[in-house]
């Protein structure tokens, strides 16, 4: 019944859009993954994204997209299944809640969904640009981590995947041909809960430079008292990207001043290079003062933060990537992410095929390694195929 409703809604929407002479396009994506153990579990999703754009005039445009997504296979998992067993037992004893009940409480269900991912109006004037609505916001120069981006969580296993739209107002004032002041506000219930930031960007001496300041409410959850704590966070950031002696370099640093808990610093520095034969190498180092230096200090809340919003457990990370064109239209990439503190890592080979002008096919895997209580050892070995058709 739900699927029938989806189809009818889709037809009505598409018909209405055509009638309004929107520019209509989008893509269909299927990803199917399987764990690599004796009894493999499958998870598959179908994603249909429909984009509707319209240039209302030279200076005003409207852009939007709707996403329809269905999930199949093992769509219900308990986050606690991925925690070290000893930690889970301790947590169960301390809270007095049996493990099975806890697992039920922390079950994550991948439910079919329809959502408006982006819908925004852009106004371009001589002295300013204004964008209002649900929109993608991309901040920072980092590849795998973006410490200055307070609007998005990032999946380090697929860092270039499109970001979900953020309900925001973005106001830009260009002050030179390559300079811009940008202010962003992501609307909350009130001014206190509204995430806001100001960014000063300038291209200078071959480098893209950016200074940023952001204020947001930082949420942390006490899993023993079972209550949420909100506090103010002031982020002072700086990022740059450019080249030195022919090598691409970038950096992004963020100092977070907290109103109640301890202040912390996060930063990345990265470099990349393309060799004469087309081999591309990149690396990134991430310093995360929020993380622990010793794996024995990983707490229940740290693991929960990892699985709910991708906050890494350790303090020092190294990301190494390689990409090479195996043949025309076939790209072979390999990535390795190392937690330098607990010595665990995950290796991700990625094979991309261009099957047609508008059809891409990806084959990827995730192979983690580490001690029992280490960060990446909790990830499951899996393999995934992704097919994407643009229209």
């Amino acid at each position, binding site marked *: 019944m739900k699927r029938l409703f989806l189809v009818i809604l889709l037809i009505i929407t598409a018909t209405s859009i055509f009638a309004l002479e929107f520019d209509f396009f989008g893509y269909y994506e299927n990803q199917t993954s399987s764990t690599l153990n004796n009894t493999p579990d499958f998870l598959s999703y179908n994603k249909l994204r429909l984009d509707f754009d319209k240039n209302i005039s030279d200076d005003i445009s409207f852009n939007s997209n709707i996403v329809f997504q269905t999930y199949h296979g093992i769509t219900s998992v308990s986050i606690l299944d991925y925690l070290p067993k000893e930690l889970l037992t301790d947590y169960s004893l301390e809270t007095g809640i049996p493990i099975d009940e806890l697992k039920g409480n922390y079950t994550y269900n991948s439910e079919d969904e329809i959502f408006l991912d982006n819908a925004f109006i852009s106004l371009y004037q001589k002295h300013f640009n204004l964008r209002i609505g649900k929109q993608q916001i991309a901040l920072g120069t980092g590849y795998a981590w973006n410490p200055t981006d307070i609007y998005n969580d990032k999946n380090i296993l697929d860092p270039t995947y499109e970001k979900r739209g953020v309900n925001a107002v973005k106001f830009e004032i260009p002050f030179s041909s390559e300079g811009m002041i940008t202010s962003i506000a992501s609307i909350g219930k009130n001014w206190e809960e509204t995430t806001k930031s100001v960014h000063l960007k300038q291209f200078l001496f071959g480098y893209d430079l950016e200074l940023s300041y952001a204020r947001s409410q930082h949420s942390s959850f006490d899993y023993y008292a079972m209550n949420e704590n909100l506090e103010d966070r002031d982020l002072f950031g700086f990022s740059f990207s*450019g080249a030195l002696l022919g090598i691409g370099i970038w950096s992004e640093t963020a100092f977070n001043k907290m109103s109640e808990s301890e202040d912390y610093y996060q930063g990345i520095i990265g470099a990349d290079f393309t060799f004469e034969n087309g081999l591309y190498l990149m690396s990134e180092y991430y310093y995360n003062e929020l993380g622990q230096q010793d794996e024995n200090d990983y707490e229940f809340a740290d693991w929960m933060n990892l699985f709910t919003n991708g906050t890494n457990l350790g303090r020092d990370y190294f990301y190494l990537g390689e990409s090479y064109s195996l043949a025309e239209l076939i790209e072979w990439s390999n990535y390795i992410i190392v937690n330098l503190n607990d010595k665990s890592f995950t290796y991700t080979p990625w094979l991309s095929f261009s099957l047609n002008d508008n059809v891409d096919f990806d084959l990827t895997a995730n192979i983690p390694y580490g001690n029992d209580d280490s960060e990446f050892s909790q990830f499951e070995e899996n393999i995934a195929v992704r097919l994407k058709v643009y229209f």
Partner: protein
Amino acid sequence: MMKKIILILTMMTGLLLAEELSIDEIVKKIDKAEQVESSFSIGKQIITTSSGKKRTLEMESYSKDKNDKQLMIYTAPVRVKGDKILMLNDGDDIWFYTPKTDRIRHLASHAKKKKVQGSDFSYEDMNSGNLGKDYNCILLGVEKTAGRECYKLELSPKPSGPHYSKLILWADTERFITLRIDYYEDDELLKRLTISDVQKISERWVALKMVMKNLQEGGETVMEMSEMELNIEIADKIFTTNNLKKH
């Protein structure tokens, strides 16, 4: 016999005319012929792989200030629609924007040798460039190519030039339009660009078709312009990074 004498005389006249110009003058004339005040074009790139598979990309291109500023906007297929390449300062600074992530990336110099959208053109090949600024040039002689008398030049890139070890360029002795370029790396011929369909637009000779053959991998990319306008009014602001995110 008479025909042979006429042919020899014609060739000798060509050589004598060619020798009248110094290498600096030839380079200046080529740069002058290929650098227009501003231009707008609509075209497509047809990429053919060594196995015969084809990919077609459509694009709009803008240039200003004698190619000092260039902007390419991909319009099809949907996979690359809205992707933009901005080149400033004679191609020294290149930015790539994709609406998929709404991100603008400044390309480091090493990235300029990467293929653009899987074609046989690299970012630095796409830059129209400036012979006088980017190369040390030697005149090798006069040679016929594509049925036209051409100056044959050897170009050794300066530090500001592309990463190739040398280029051999053939430019029309009459129109000073480049008709062929061979790209070398360590004396190995990598790619060959042949230029054809030269037409007169707004009193200037312009090439509307370019074929880049990848002699190592076997593929080729054909770039064809279906529409071209020269010396038109183009606002400076479109050649700014600030403008790249404009839909």
